């Protein structure tokens, strides 16, 4: 283990390697690392921003959903109300129609009754006239007794 030129040679070798490392190895690697660090930081920030936005969107979605639900229930309530109204209306209409029908029928019946009565009266008159005619025979003038018979018929 004697000292010799190797010692100086090693110093030079060391210096050369250090210089080379200093010049060509260290800077590009550190630059790449630095740039990547920045890029990752940016990416993380963007991700965080995205997450925040997603949160907001979620909240908005919930709000919209709630609104929609409210609207839907409103619509349903309105529809139910409307349906009830329609049913009531229909009921009323039906009732009115029924009443109208009943009234019409009653009127018709009344009319029929009246007509029947008139007819009956007419027939009774003619019957009475015929009867009276037969009773009075030729003596009684049909025209002179007509007033009398009409009076009688009106009293029926």
């Amino acid at each position: 283990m004697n000292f010799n030129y190797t010692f100086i040679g090693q110093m030079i070798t060391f210096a050369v390697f250090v210089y080379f490392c200093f010049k060509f190895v260290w800077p590009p690697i550190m630059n790449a690392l630095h740039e990547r660090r920045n890029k990752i930081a940016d990416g993380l920030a963007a991700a965080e921003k995205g997450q925040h936005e997603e949160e907001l969107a979620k909240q908005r979605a919930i709000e919209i959903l709630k609104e929609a639900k409210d609207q839907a229930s409103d619509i349903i309530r309105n529809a139910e109300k409307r349906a009830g109204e329609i049913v009531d209306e229909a009921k009323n209409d039906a009732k009115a129609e029924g009443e109208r029908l009943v009234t019409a029928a009653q009127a018709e019946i009344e009319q029929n009754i009246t007509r029947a009565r008139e007819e009956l009266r007419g027939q009774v008159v003619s019957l009475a006239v015929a009867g009276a005619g037969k009773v009075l025979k030729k003596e009684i003038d049909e025209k002179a007794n007509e007033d009398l018979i009409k009076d009688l018929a009106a009293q029926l």
Partner: protein
Amino acid sequence: MASEQTSAQYIKHHLTNLTYGDMPQEAVGKQLCEGMPAVKEAGWQFAHCAAEAQEMGFHSINVDTMFWSITLGIVFIWLFRKAAKKATVDTPSGLQNFVEWVCEFIDTSVRGSFTAKNDLVAPMALTVFIWVFLMNFMDLIPVDLLPWVAGQVGSALFGVDPHHVYFKVVPSTDPNATFGMSIAVFLLMLFYSVKIKGVGGFTGELTLHPFSSKNPILMLVFIPINFLLEFVSLIAKPISLSLRLYGNMYAGEMIFILIALMFGLAESGTILGWFGAGVGGIMQLGWAIFHILIITLQAFIFMTLTIVYMDMAHQTSEAH
């Protein structure tokens, strides 16, 4: 382990660097290596053993240390450069993930202990960490494998006896390598100390602490004492930095070599011998697993201390 070697020779062989150096004239004719012919000629040549390398002194170079440290350094640079070229903001994958993870880790460490602003510190910490780790990692490769390959290559290409090809594959077990790094860090420390604090500030830091007095005469007495204390603590930094790594790796390598000796027991052919080799295998596995921790830890410590020393050099107002 070759059967014709003794244990001591085996260990020594493993701890000797492949040295290429300038053999001085006065060594010619001396028989330095055991069982080898005497040195034939002066001039640049491979040392045949540690004694010859010793004779060459400073005018030599550890080929194995240089080869592996440069190779591993290139592996590091190539790998990280590949990832750096492809580095994009998009999702990383595979190698890029790993490289970014390491860089992030280094960056955190630097931010934790280095307060001043200097763009050089983080890349230096990265280089120190990975390079030292890779150099330490060579320790986990079976101790005989690469030296054996080197021996075969040496004998095939250069016609040398494979037993005289030395190959120490762990550069951080060579104090030349660890001191080379720590002294380089130390020089940077001195450079930035002077640059940030100025010559006066740095000298003041070395001489005006820890003892100080308002009395000028007393202060004059204190200055050399302060300088002695501060200078020792300054010098201790690179020395402790490199010796810590060197010592840990050397000891780890030594234990691997000692465990590897147990495999030689199997050559006796007896059941006991095979049993011993088996125990050696288990021990090697255990030590290797434990060593993964050590090599990482030592690389981390070297890196952290580098950062801390650089931080100290940048501290303008030192509070004692």
